[in-house]
């Protein structure tokens, strides 16, 4: 046990002490900050109103209410509200429609900083519009589905208003009737409100899955590289005479794993500080409270956090041990990469399964995958965040992961023990099987 600890310490300390570790640890938070701040800075400048020219050839005075509806639309609510559109009415008739429209279109697409004459888009209402609801929009932003939806919604509102007014309905009543529904969702666990929205907790689980995926891809393979390097450096001839292969590999998997976890811990910690201190930081960057709101990280109940951390750590280590087993089988990194594909595949299966679970988190698929150690670290956090998981299932799933980890290291040890001095010769599958049984 003490020997394993010596190996863990060596692997950990030697990794954490390198300059590369320090630099990568410091650089990522800087990038994270830049990634968080830059879009906000850019967007706060980008939230300008679109200049829309409304060509009214309806003959029924439809233009006026449409312009009014567009002018009333805002970004955000309350005090922070800013006009979303800047609409200008151009009256026309059936004869002059084409000419007016083409004249405006010629200036469309030059709105940004190009003075009064440029337009983001041209909206054309013709004689049919009121009856059929058909109208045309020409603009440089037609490929933004969100933008087009909004515009269509605003115009529909205006159309409905005009149609209802024509039918003799009171304008005030129309406004009331048109007030939209606004739904908030909240998650219930064991009959208690958790205070999180369903969307937010899935986003968290997804975020964790994604982080795990990235962590395994980038760090897991370090165990592999480390095992192969050691085989080639031949120091293992001294080590094998003092340590069992299990001690060596367990120390390696844990030491390398903990170094990776340390770095990620620092990063996640930074992210949380950024999240909780968002408004202050935003202030420091000269942004309004509105921009700061974009920093907010959903709050996490402690139980969820514990489950996440457990699965993350175990998942990370289990994949590390798989990589160690591959390292034990191979003599060169190139050779190992062929086998590493299998690991990548199973990570992907686990990761993709997260999306399959959204609809039926407690179904057979979800439950089965929770008991497969390679998939559980992806599956379980999603289930936990979306439904109530029976404690027995949680315990069994965690237990199986620990067993899986030990089994994997043991297996790797068996291969390592025999493969260790077989330099330059790639084992066949049959040989591998014999080594494991030996």
């Amino acid at each position, binding site marked *: 046990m*003490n*020997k394993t600890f*010596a*190996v863990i310490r*060596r692997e950990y*300390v*030697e990794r954490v002490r*390198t300059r590369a570790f320090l630099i990568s640890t410091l650089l990522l938070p800087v990038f994270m900050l830049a990634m968080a701040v830059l879009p906000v800075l850019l967007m706060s400048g980008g939230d300008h109103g679109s200049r829309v020219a409304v060509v009214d050839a309806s003959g029924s005075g439809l233009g006026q209410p449409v312009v009014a509806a567009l002018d009333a639309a805002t970004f955000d609510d309350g005090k922070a509200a800013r006009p979303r559109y800047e609409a200008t009415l151009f009256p026309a008739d059936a004869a002059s429609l084409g000419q007016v429209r083409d004249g405006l279109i010629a200036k469309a697409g030059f709105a940004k900083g190009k003075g009064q004459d440029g337009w983001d888009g041209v909206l054309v209402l013709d004689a049919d519009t009121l009856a059929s609801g058909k109208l045309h929009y020409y603009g440089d932003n037609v490929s933004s589905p969100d933008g087009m939806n909004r515009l269509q919604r605003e115009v529909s509102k205006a159309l409905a208003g005009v149609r209802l007014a024509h039918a003799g309905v009171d304008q005030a009543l129309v406004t009331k009737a048109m007030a939209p529904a606004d739904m908030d969702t909240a998650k219930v666990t064991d009959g208690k409100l958790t205070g999180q929205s369903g969307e937010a907790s899935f986003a968290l689980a997804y975020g964790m899955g994604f982080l795990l995926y990235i962590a395994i891809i980038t760090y897991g393979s370090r165990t592999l590289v480390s095992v192969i390097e050691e085989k080639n*450096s*031949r*120091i*293992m*001839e*001294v*080590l*094998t*005479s*003092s*340590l*069992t292969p299990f001690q060596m590999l367990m120390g390696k998997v844990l030491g390398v794993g903990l170094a990776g976890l340390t770095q990620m811990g620092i990063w996640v910690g930074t992210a949380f500080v950024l999240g909780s201190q968002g408004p202050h930081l935003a202030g420091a960057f000269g942004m309004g409270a509105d921009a700061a709101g974009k920093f907010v990280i959903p709050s996490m109940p402690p139980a969820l956090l514990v489950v996440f951390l457990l699965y993350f750590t175990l998942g990370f280590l289990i994949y590390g041990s798989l990589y160690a087993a591959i390292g034990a089988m191979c003599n060169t990194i190139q050779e190992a990469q062929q086998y590493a594909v299998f690991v990548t595949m199973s990570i992907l299966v686990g990761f993709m399964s997260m999306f399959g679970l959204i609809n039926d988190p407690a179904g057979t698929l979800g439950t089965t995958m929770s008991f497969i150690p390679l998939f559980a670290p992806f599956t379980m956090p999603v289930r936990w965040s979306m439904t109530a998981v029976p404690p027995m299932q949680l315990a069994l799933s965690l237990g199986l992961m620990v067993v899986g980890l030990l089994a994997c290291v043991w297996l790797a040890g068996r291969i390592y023990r025999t493969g*260790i*001095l*077989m*330099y*330059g010769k790639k084992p066949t599958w049959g040989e591998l099987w014999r080594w494991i049984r030996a």
Partner: protein
Amino acid sequence: MSTPSVSVESVTKRFAGHTAVSDLSLQVPSGGIYGLLGPNGAGKSTTIRLIMSILQPDEGRIALFGDGRNSRDLSARIGYLPEERGLYKKMKVLDHLVFLGEVKGIARNDARQRAQAWLERLEIAGWAQKKVEDLSKGMQQKVQFAGSLLHEPELVILDEPFSGLDPINAQAMKDIVVEIAAGGRTVLFSTHVMEQAERMCDRVAIIARGKLVVNGTVAQVKADFGGRHVALGFAHDRHQADAILADPRLVARLDDYGASAELKMADGADPGQLLAALVGAGVGLRRFEVVEPSLHAIFVAKVGADPDATPLPAVAGASA
């Protein structure tokens, strides 16, 4: 004699294509220096790896201290310097030694003190905080040597410990090896340098092509080799001696170094005859001495003369 430190019984190890060790038996008694001699490719390193349980024998068995367990279970009692030196290149020297001590089961603080003491003894204390890769090859070898002795093992197994060292460092290592043996502990080392073995070893085993050729105390090996041996040193007119030395009635075997030679007299021939012949031919002699056969002569006679025993090319993983 007490239980042997190492007992190798009828061990055979085959690699794909060749037999590295063939039906080898030898006993390393407790205490003293035991030399495992042989040409390159003779199976010395394979034998040592078998003793260290890095390789498993195909046949036969190996016992350490008369104990049934393998060397890893007994690793606290054994120090090992492999032929292929390997250290973690990026680690600091002192940290590395502490680690090597820890995996042998020494507590961290204790390991640190011992490591410090060894570095001072080997006169590389100034390098304690340097990375291993910054050290010269010779210094790295000293570090690894210290690493194998840190836990004061009662059995020290050194594979070619003096190869690659300059004379001063080789001398320092030799002193340490002798000191260990003087303290009652056992040293088993392999070498192909006979002079060194002859001067240091109490017992030797010469192996060639995986087989035991000669085995026993140095005195015994020499006595068994038998015959009368003469060491010659030439002052001038060396060429005049050629015909005499080639005469099979006088000389059974010649080991020629140019300016000196060692020879075994033919059966029934007398050293006096040889001296008279040499002087008569006008050969200037610096030295003429009837001697015990050197290990080198025995080695060459037993191994080198056999045409099948010419050194095998070193094969990775199974060399020496």
